[in-house]
Every structure is written in structure tokens, then in C-alpha cells.
């Protein structure tokens, strides 16, 4: 029991320790840790948890961690995942806040981070391509994906609204497809 919880804590600790950026920057590392190397959840579930996390209150990274932790070991697993995720922040930020004044202005730190941010873009692109393969399967998916992309790039529309609308569209489209295939079945 405790070894399972510790394993969850450890995995999310590692994710927190190597994420540079927001909750989305965590995605490549998350896929590696919980989909590819351990098979805890599927690629589709990662997408589902991100979609829900985006639509719910709370930090995205913390929401996704709590979902996956809960999926593994219920409420205790969710707590273990959230604690794992915040632990590296606590350790690293505490050291910097207390002992390393001017850390962010250090020339070498800035150069290293400037290049790391380029690498993070490449990692996110790789993750987007994987999601594209699993998430965009037909013309309707393509339209939804592009519409959301353009709306979030060029307007200030809230991501929460986009999530809610796309969930409703999904339900409506599938219901329409089912009733059409039923009509077809009745004709034959």
C-alpha cells in the first residue's frame, strides 16, 4: 500500500523537478513517466485528463496530477501525486529565496534557460504530434482542433468556454451520427 503511494509520489516528484514552464510544459515528461515507461494510463486518458483539468478550477498541472494519482490509488493516490509535484518546488525555491539572491539574473542561468526554452518547444511539438495522431481522427475532429487553435491564438475567449462548447459539440455530433445510422438501418 505505502510502496504504491511512494511510487506515485516519486514519479510526480520527478515530473515537478524537470518541468520548465506551466502545466503544458509538464506534458512531455508526464507522457514519458506515466504512459511510455510505466503504462499507468493510456495516451487517450492523458488527453482526457488535460481536457478536464483545463475546464476545472485549479492549476492544470495539479489537476492532472490529482486525476492520475486518484486513478492509481484513490484519494490517497491523488494526495501523494499532488505532494510529489509540489515537493521539488518547495525545495528548490526555498534554497533560492533564502540563499541565492539574484539567481535569475545570473548570466549562465539565463543562457541555460534561454536554450532550455527552445528545447521545451520541441518537446511540446513532439507531444502535440502524438496527441494529433490519437485525438484527431476525422474531419469533425480536424475542424474542432483548428477552430480551438485559432480562437485561442487570436481571441481572448476563455479556454473553459472552449472546453465546455467542444464537449457539447462532441455529444451532439455523436448523437446525430447514431440517429442517422439508425435511420439507415431502418431503411435497409
Amino acid at each position: 500500500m505505502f510502496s504504491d503511494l511512494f511510487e506515485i509520489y516519486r514519479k510526480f516528484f520527478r515530473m515537478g523537478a524537470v518541468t520548465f514552464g506551466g502545466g503544458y510544459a509538464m506534458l512531455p515528461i508526464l507522457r514519458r513517466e506515466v504512459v511510455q515507461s510505466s503504462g499507468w494510463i493510456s495516451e487517450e486518458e492523458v488527453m482526457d485528463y488535460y481536457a478536464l483539468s483545463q475546464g476545472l478550477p485549479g492549476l492544470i498541472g495539479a489537476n492532472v496530477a490529482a486525476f492520475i494519482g486518484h486513478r492509481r490509488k484513490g484519494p490517497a493516490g491523488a494526495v501523494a501525486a499532488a505532494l510529489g509535484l509540489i515537493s521539488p518546488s518547495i525545495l528548490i525555491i526555498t534554497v533560492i529565496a533564502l540563499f541565492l539572491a539574484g539567481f535569475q539574473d545570473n548570466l549562465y542561468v539565463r543562457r541555460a534557460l534561454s536554450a532550455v526554452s527552445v528545447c521545451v518547444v520541441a518537446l511540446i511539438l513532439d507531444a502535440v504530434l502524438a496527441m494529433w495522431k490519437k485525438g484527431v481522427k476525422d474531419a469533425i475532429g480536424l475542424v474542432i482542433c483548428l477552430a480551438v487553435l485559432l480562437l485561442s491564438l487570436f481571441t481572448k475567449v476563455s479556454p473553459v468556454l472552449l472546453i465546455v462548447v467542444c464537449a457539447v459539440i462532441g455529444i451532439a455530433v455523436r448523437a446525430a451520427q447514431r440517429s442517422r445510422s439508425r435511420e439507415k438501418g431502418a431503411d435497409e
Partner: protein
Amino acid sequence: MIYLRLFWEFLKIGLFAVGGGMATLPFLQELSTRTGWYSQAFITDMVAISESTPGPIGINMATYVGCNVAGIPGGIVASIGVVTPSLIIILFIAKSLERFRKATVIEDAFYGLRPAVTGLICAAGLSVARVALLQLASSQPLSDALSSLDWRRLALFAAAFLGIRKLKWHPVVFIAISAAVGILLAF
């Protein structure tokens, strides 16, 4: 008591932060004017440090503020506070989600959500790319990119992307190599 107040304030920030760490920024500004715990100038440092250290930005900002307001326990309490709403809400939802996972209506909703989240993450990636690859501030138009185009960045991007696709190493390896490249080539 300062720790309870910190916990409560960051719990509220976590609750209202819809859409990621940077969404907490306006709330942190409001907290600064209301409590006087830190100055507006402190916020600039906070963002810089949170972006330049590992860990999701929203959590880093909570730790940094807590730590500066009330020392190490303050940092711990603020970080726990900021993730507490996530825990409560997900505990509430995850149980029914796992139970109704196979329900048609949930599957149908995800049919619309999967392409949507692909689009959202692509947009997030592009906004990082704007700053990281083209070095444009968020207010600068895209047309400024050509004049400040840095080929080393594009080369690093291409090399990193190829490596990620072909080698399948752990992401942290590519992050570490990039950091070294950045220092050696003075990015």
C-alpha cells in the same frame, strides 16, 4: 496566524486560477495591494524565478511568496494551499468519472474534447515558441521576427526535435543537453 492566512489566500488563488499558473498573476497582484506582504516590484522577481526554476510556474510562485512572507513553513503552507482546490475538486469528480467512464455521454463528450485539447496544447506550444524561438515579447507583432531571427535557436530547435523523435530518450536528457549548449554557445 500567518500560516493559516497564507494557506487560505493561496487556496483561493488556486481555486480561481483557471487555465494554468500565469492565470494566478492578477490574483497575486491583488494580494499584494490588499495585504502589503510584498511589493509590486517583488512580483517581477517572483515571475522570473518561477520561470527559471523547475516545477510548474503556479506552484513555484506560491512557494516563493510563502517563503518570503513566512520563511520555510510559509513556503510549504502556500504550496499546499494552492493545490488544495485541485485535490478537493478532483476527488469529487474522479470517482464519478471512473464510474461513468464507459457511459455513452462521457465518451461522446471526449470525442469533442480530444481534438479540442490538442488545439489548446498546440496554441500553448506556439505561444512559448514565439518567445523562445523568435524572441518576441507578447506585445510585438510577428513581422518583427525576421529582423531578429537567430539561426542558432532554429538550429537547436531542429536538432532537439530530431533527437526527440529518433532517439526516444527521457525528456530531461534533452533539457540538460540544451542547458549545456546554451551556456557553451552563449545563448
